[in-house]
C-alpha cells in the first residue's frame, strides 16, 4: 500500500474542516485552500484499484476506490474547492461557514471515492446534512429554504437507500462490480430497484418536477456558499447516476434532453441573477444526464467532460454574480446595468464563463457539449420525432443550447452592457479577481487545447478502438453549428426582449406542489360523495398541520402554546386512559380468538 492510499481523502478534509473552524480567519482560509489544492496532484497520482477494504456492520466496504471516473471527479472537486475557499476569504465569509463548506467538500470526496453502495449512500446522506448546515448558517430566508432542501433530499436519499437494499437482496453484496468480489453486472439491478434509484438520484440531479429545490435554495445563502453549492450536489448526482446506470437508459437520456430545454427556458424568465444561474445548473446537468443515459462510451466520456467543464464555468458564473451582489447589494437584473465600465474584470470573467456555458467555439463548453451532441447523433437511436437529419435527442440538446445563449445574452446585457449605472462601484477586490481570472483562464485553456481535457477522460474519445465515433472538436460543421447557435440566440433574444421584460415572476412546479395536492384531491373528492369530503377534510387538515409544522414550526408552536394553558384536547385523562386500555384489550382478544 503506498503512501497515497493510507487514508481516504474524506478523513483528511473533515479534520481540515474542524481545524479551519478553530483557526483565525486568514490562517484558516490559507490552509483551507491549500489542502484541497493538494488533493489535485493526489487525485492525479493515486494508483487505480480498490483500496482500504474494510468491514462495515458486517458487510464488505471499500472506502477508497480509484478508477478514471472517480479520479476525474477528485481532480475537479479539489481544484474548485481551493478556488472557492480563496473566494470565500475575499468575500468576507467567516470561518464557521468555510468549515461547513469544507465538510461538505469532504463528504463529496467520500461519495465519489466510495467502492460500494453502502459507503456511497453514507456520504450521500452526509452531503445533504452538511450542505443544509451551509445554507442554514446564513440565517434569514435561507433557513426555510434549507428546511425544504433537507426534506426533499432526505426523501431522495431514502428512496436511493430503498433501491440499494432491494439491489442487495438480489445480488447479496453492496460492492461495485469493478471491485474484486463485486457482482457480475455493474449498476443497480433492474426493475423496482432501478426505478427507485432513478428517482432518488433524480432529486439530486434535478429531474423536472423534482428540481424545485435548486432555484429555491441556491440564490439564498452567502455568495461564497453558492459557489460551493453549485458544484458538489448535482455533480455527485451525475456520478451516482453513472454508477447506477453504467449502460444508460433511454428514459434517462430523454429526461436529460427535457431538462436541458426546461432549465434554459425557465432561466430566461428569471431576473434574480443567482436564480437564473440555478436554472442553468438544471439545464447543464440535463446534458450530463443525457450523456449518461445514452450509455455509449463516447456519450459518457462527454458527460464527464461536461461535469469537469461545467464545474469550472458555473463556479465562475456564481463568483461573478456574487461579486456584483457584493459590490452593488442587489440581486435583480432589473436594477442593474452598464456595469462593464465600473467592473471590467468581472465583466470580462463573466463573458468568458457565459461563452463557455453557451458552447461558443474556443471555450471549454464547446468541446464537451460537442461530445455529448455527437454521441446523441452517432450512438443513439433516432427517437420518436427526428427533424430532418437531427435526431430527437440531438435537437433537444441543440435547442437547449439556443436557450442558453439567449439567457446569457440577457444576463450580460442587463447586468453589464445595457444603459448606465447610477453612481460608482469598485470592481472585484484583488483576491476575488485572482480566483475569477484563474478559473476563466482554465475555461479558455481547456477550450483551445482540448487534448488536455481528453487525457483525463475515462474513455479516449480520439481513438476509434474505444469509441464508436471518433470525436474531433474543431471541424468546419461543428464550428458552424456553434456560431449558428449563437446567432439564433441573438435573434431570439432580440425578438423576445420586449415580452420578457414585461413578464412577472413565472411560477414553477413548487407553486403547484401544495395547491395541487390540496385543492386537486379536495375538488375531486368532494365531487364524489359527502363521506369522501369528510375524509378529505381530515386529510387536508392533517397535511396542513404537517406542512405548517415542518415549514413554519414557530407559528404552530406559538398557536399550541396558546391552547396549552387552557385545555389539552389531545391529552387523555385517567378515566379515558383506562377506557382506551379496556377497549384495546377487548379488541385484541377478539382479534386473536
Amino acid at each position: 500500500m503506498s503512501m497515497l492510499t493510507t487514508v481516504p481523502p474524506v478523513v483528511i478534509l473533515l479534520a481540515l474542516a474542524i481545524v479551519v473552524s478553530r483557526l483565525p480567519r486568514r490562517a484558516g482560509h490559507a490552509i483551507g485552500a491549500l489542502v484541497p489544492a493538494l488533493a489535485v496532484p493526489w487525485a492525479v497520482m493515486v494508483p487505480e484499484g480498490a483500496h482500504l477494504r474494510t468491514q462495515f456492520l458486517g458487510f464488505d466496504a471499500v472506502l477508497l476506490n480509484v478508477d478514471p471516473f472517480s479520479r476525474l471527479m477528485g481532480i475537479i472537486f479539489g481544484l474548485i474547492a481551493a478556488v472557492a475557499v480563496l473566494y470565500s476569504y475575499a468575500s468576507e465569509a467567516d470561518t464557521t461557514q468555510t468549515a461547513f463548506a469544507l465538510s461538505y467538500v469532504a463528504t463529496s470526496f467520500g461519495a465519489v471515492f466510495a467502492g460500494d453502495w453502502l459507503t456511497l449512500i453514507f456520504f450521500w446522506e452526509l452531503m445533504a446534512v452538511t450542505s443544509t448546515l451551509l445554507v442554514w448558517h446564513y440565517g434569514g430566508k435561507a433557513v426555510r429554504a434549507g428546511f425544504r432542501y433537507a426534506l426533499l433530499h432526505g426523501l431522495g436519499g431514502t428512496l436511493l437507500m430503498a433501491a440499494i437494499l432491494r439491489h442487495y437482496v438480489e445480488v447479496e453484496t453492496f460492492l461495485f462490480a469493478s471491485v474484486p468480489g463485486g457482482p457480475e453486472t455493474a449498476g443497480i439491478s433492474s426493475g423496482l430497484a432501478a426505478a427507485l434509484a432513478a428517482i432518488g438520484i433524480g432529486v439530486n440531479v434535478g429531474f423536472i418536477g423534482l428540481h424545485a429545490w435548486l432555484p429555491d435554495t441556491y440564490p439564498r445563502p452567502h455568495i461564497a456558499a453558492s459557489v460551493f453549492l453549485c458544484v458538489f450536489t448535482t455533480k455527485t448526482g451525475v456520478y451516482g447516476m453513472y454508477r447506477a446506470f453504467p449502460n444508460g437508459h433511454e428514459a434517462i437520456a430523454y429526461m436529460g434532453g427535457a431538462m436541458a430545454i426546461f432549465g434554459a427556458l425557465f432561466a430566461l424568465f428569471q431576473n434574480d441573477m443567482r436564480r437564473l444561474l440555478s436554472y442553468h445548473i438544471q439545464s447543464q446537468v440535463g446534458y450530463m444526464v443525457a450523456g449518461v443515459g445514452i450509455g455509449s462510451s463516447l456519450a459518457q466520456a462527454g458527460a464527464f467532460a461536461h461535469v469537469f467543464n461545467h464545474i469550472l464555468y458555473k463556479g465562475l458564473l456564481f463568483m461573478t454574480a456574487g461579486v456584483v451582489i457584493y459590490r452593488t447589494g442587489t440581486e435583480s437584473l432589473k436594477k442593474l446595468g452598464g456595469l462593464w465600465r465600473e467592473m471590467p474584470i468581472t465583466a470580462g470573467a463573466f463573458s468568458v464563463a457565459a461563452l463557455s456555458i453557451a458552447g461558443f467555439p474556443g471555450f471549454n463548453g464547446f468541446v464537451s457539449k460537442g461530445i455529448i451532441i455527437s454521441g446523441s447523433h452517432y450512438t443513439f437511436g433516432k427517437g420518436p420525432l427526428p427533424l430532418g437529419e437531427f435526431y430527437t435527442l440531438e435537437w433537444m440538446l441543440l435547442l437547449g443550447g439556443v436557450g442558453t445563449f439567449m439567457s446569457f445574452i440577457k444576463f450580460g446585457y442587463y447586468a453589464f452592457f445595457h444603459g448606465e449605472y447610477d453612481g460608482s462601484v469598485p470592481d472585484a477586490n484583488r483576491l476575488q479577481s485572482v480566483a475569477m481570472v484563474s478559473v476563466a483562464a482554465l475555461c479558455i485553456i481547456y477550450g483551445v487545447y482540448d487534448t488536455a481535457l481528453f487525457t483525463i477522460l475515462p474513455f479516449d474519445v480520439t481513438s476509434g478502438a474505444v469509441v464508436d465515433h471518433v470525436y474531433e472538436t474543431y471541424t468546419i460543421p461543428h464550428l458552424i453549428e456553434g456560431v449558428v447557435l449563437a446567432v439564433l440566440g441573438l435573434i431570439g433574444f432580440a425578438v423576445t426582449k420586449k415580452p420578457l421584460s414585461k413578464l412577472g415572476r413565472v411560477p414553477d412546479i413548487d407553486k403547484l406542489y401544495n395547491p395541487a395536492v390540496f385543492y386537486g384531491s379536495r375538488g375531486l373528492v368532494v365531487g364524489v360523495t359527502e363521506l369522501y369530503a369528510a375524509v378529505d377534510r381530515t386529510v387536508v387538515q392533517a397535511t396542513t398541520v404537517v406542512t405548517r409544522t415542518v415549514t413554519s414550526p414557530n407559528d404552530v408552536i406559538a398557536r399550541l402554546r396558546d391552547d396549552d394553558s387552557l385545555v389539552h384536547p389531545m391529552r387523555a385523562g385517567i378515566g379515558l386512559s383506562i377506557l382506551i386500555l379496556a377497549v384495546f384489550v377487548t379488541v385484541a382478544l377478539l382479534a386473536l380468538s
Partner: protein
Amino acid sequence: MIEQLPVLLVVLPIVGGSIPLVASLVSDRAGWPVATLTLVGQAGLAGLLAWTVSASGTVSYAVGGFAAPYGIELVVDGLSGAVALLVAVVSLGVLAYARQAGPHSNAFYGLYLLLVAGLTGMTVTGDVFNLYVFLEITGLAAYGLVASGRDASAAVAALKYLIIGTVGASLYLLGVGYLLAATGTLNMADLASKLGEMAAYDSTLVLTAFGLMIGGLTVKVALFPLHTWQPDAYANAPDTVSAFISALVSTVSAYALARLLFSVFTVEFLAAVPVARWALVGLACVSIIAGSALAVSQDSVQRMLAYSSVSQFGLVIAGFAIATPLAVVGATVHLLGHAVMKGGLFAATGVIERKTGATTVNGYAGMGSRVPLSAFSFAVLSLAMVGVPPAVGFVGKWYIVLGAVNAENWPVVAVLLASTLLTLAYFARLVERLYFAEATIHSEETPAEAPVTDGSGQAVSFGMIAVVVVAAALAVALTAAVPAFEQVLRDTLLPILNQ
C-alpha cells in the same frame, strides 16, 4: 459464587435500599453515599455476571434450593445479562446526576434502590409469576419516584401512572392465571415445552393468556394508544427521575415482552398463530407513526422526548415481532442504545433548564452558544436518535430494517424508513433552534445566573454535565462494541429462535 450471582444482584439493592431509611436516625444526607456504594457493587457484580455468561453460557439459580419447575428459577443468558448490566451501569451513572440535582432525601434513595432491585429482578427471573412480583415492585417504586417532584402536577402524574400501570399489571396477572390453568406450571422453560403439547397454540385459553399478558406489558412499554401515562410522568417528575425511568423502566418492560415472546410462547406460537404476529407488528407500526406525529406537535421539549419514546419502542417491538435473528439483534441493540440516548437527552434537558430556564422548543433558540457543551451533547444525542451513522442508533435501526427486508415484510420496511424521516423532523427542528436561531431567552432573565447558595438544586454540577457528555460519547462509542455483543447475542438467540 458464580451460581449465586443472579440472586445477589436482586438482594444487594434491596438490602442497600433499606439502609438509608435506618440511617435517617443519624443523618438526613446518608442516602447518596449508601446508594453509590451499593450500585458500585451492583455494577461490579453485573459486569462479572455478563462476562461469565459471554464466556461460558447461561447461568441459572434455584431460589431456596427448590428445583425448577416447582421452585423459582433465576436464569441469565446473553440477553438478560446485557440488560442487567445496562440497569446497573445506567442507575450508577444517574446517581452522578442526582448528587446535585436531587431530590436529596433518604427516602428517595431507598425508592431508587428498590426500583433497581425490581428492574434487575424482572431481568433475571425465569418464572412468569415472579416476573409479575418484580413488575409490581418496579411499578410501585416508579410511582413513588415520580411523586417525589415538588409540583402538584407530579402527584397527579404519579396517580395517573399508578392507576393505569396497576391495571396493566393486573391484566398481566390474569394472563398468568390462564397460562397456569392451561399447563399447570409457571416456569418459563417448562411453559415453553408444555405449551403446544398440553394446550394447542390456537386454543382460546392460550390466545387469551397471550393477549392479556402482552397487552398488560404493552401498557408498561407505553406503546400507542396505551402510552397516556408516560408523557405526564416523564415531564412532571424531577429531572433525575425523568432521566432514570425514561432510560430503564420501559426498556426492561420491553425486554420482558421479548422474553415472553421468545422463551414462553416461542417462535412456533408466532408461526402457528400468524394473527398474533400481525397484531403485534401492526401495533408497533401504529406506535411508530403516531408517536412521531405527536412528538412533532409538542411544545415542551420533555414531552417531545417522551412521545419520541413511544415511537422508538414501536421500532423495538417491531424488531422483536419480526423475530428473525437479525431483527432481534437489531431490536436489542436499539433497546440498549435507546436507553443511553434517551436518558442522556432527559439529563441534558435538565441541565439546559437549570442554566437558561429554557424548557420549550422555542426557548431552545440560540442556546447553542449559552450552554455549548450540553447543547452539543444534546445535538449529538439527537442525531444519534435519528440514526445518523456512526452512532449506535443507526446500527440498531439498520439491523431491524435489514431483518424486515430479509423477512420480505415490505410494509414494515416502509414504516421503518418513514420513521427515520419523522424522527428527523422533530429533532432537526430542535438542533436548528439550538444553533441557527436568535435567542428568545436572554441571560439577564435567567434564574440560574443568580448565585445559588442554599443548595436548592438550581445549580449545575460537574457530575451533571459529565453524565450528559458521557451519554453522548457512549451513543457513538457503543457502535464499536456492537460486533462483539452481536456474537454473544447470536449464541443466545439462535437456539431460542430455532435457527
